[in-house]
């Protein structure tokens, strides 16, 4: 908590840390209205802990992106391929 952060608590046009942490997703999504976005940028500029928090949210998002994905079992996918072939072999009866 830096002394600069005093403004965030006393000036009602700025945001407190407890509000910032609930706005980070909207901020990262680009969903904040310009005024709120500006207030949040101003807060971040003077509040290292909130900068850390935001950076950790970004790191978290990155890490989720590296979680191994699960897929359907090979056998199930083969069954589906058979079903696909069967469907297309019957729905196109010879026209002559």
């Amino acid at each position, binding site marked *: 908590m830096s002394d600069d952060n005093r403004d965030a608590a006393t000036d009602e046009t700025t945001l407190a840390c*407890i509000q910032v942490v609930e706005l980070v*997703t909207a901020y990262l*999504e680009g*969903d904040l209205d310009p005024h709120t976005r500006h207030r949040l940028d101003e807060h971040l500029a003077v509040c290292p802990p909130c900068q*850390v928090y935001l950076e950790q949210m970004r790191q978290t998002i990155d890490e989720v992106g590296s979680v191994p994905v699960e897929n*359907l079992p090979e056998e199930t*996918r083969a069954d589906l391929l058979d079903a696909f072939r069967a*469907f297309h072999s019957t729905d196109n009866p010879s026209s002559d």
Partner: protein
Amino acid sequence: MHRTDVSIAVLEAPRPLTPSVALPSRGDRRYGCTTDRSALAEVRVPDAGVREAAPQDAALADRLRNGDADAFAHVVASYSPAMLHVARGFVSTSASAEEVVQEAWLAVIKGLDAFEGRASLRTWACRITANIARRRGVLDARTVPWTDAFADGDADGGPTVDASRFRGADDRWPGGWTEVGAPATWGPERAALDAEARAVVAEALSRLPDRHRTVVALRDLHGLSAEEVCDALGLTMGNQRVLLHRGRAQLRQLLEDYHVSKEGPR
């Protein structure tokens, strides 16, 4: 439910889940996404392609309609992981989710003519999966309908960071981080997390509440856009963001706990 019960209903866009939000006009259906307009108005659309399938999707759909088995094998391999996450949002076991996804693919096979290219092919397949999974979840009497969860505001209300980490209302700096509550940096050497941390994230993701896990996985793991997630799950933009925020915040906290336990308390 019976395999043969794949009706056209599962191919349709889901109904909006939040009664408290104004219902979209019928015209919104052309987007296939039941977003609430007020939320959309302030939202930047990051990917214009959401509204119309990419050209390669239209070409892919044509190949599928023509019975191209290679194309089908490709989409099954690439879309099924996201579809499994969709299914797990509604049913309780992996086995059940696999059955739902299998059923969804059968619906896709039979329903390809109904694909109009208004969403991406993957989003369309995810929406079909959600419709089938939702039904099955109700039959299993297992899931709290997503809409009820929003109505009671329980799991999706309240702060995402422990309030004790912030200064009280009578403090000189109300709502600011306390000395001990402030998050400590994970350190530059931690910027790329090690294999152990990665396992922590995978485990944490799997343990998130269904709705949070589903949205976080679709967005941050499978790379769907906000609009695509709304389209697939029948969420408003606002609710999608709430679920995403709460899910990400829980994961961040679990990662913080991991780092603190690893490096010791400050």
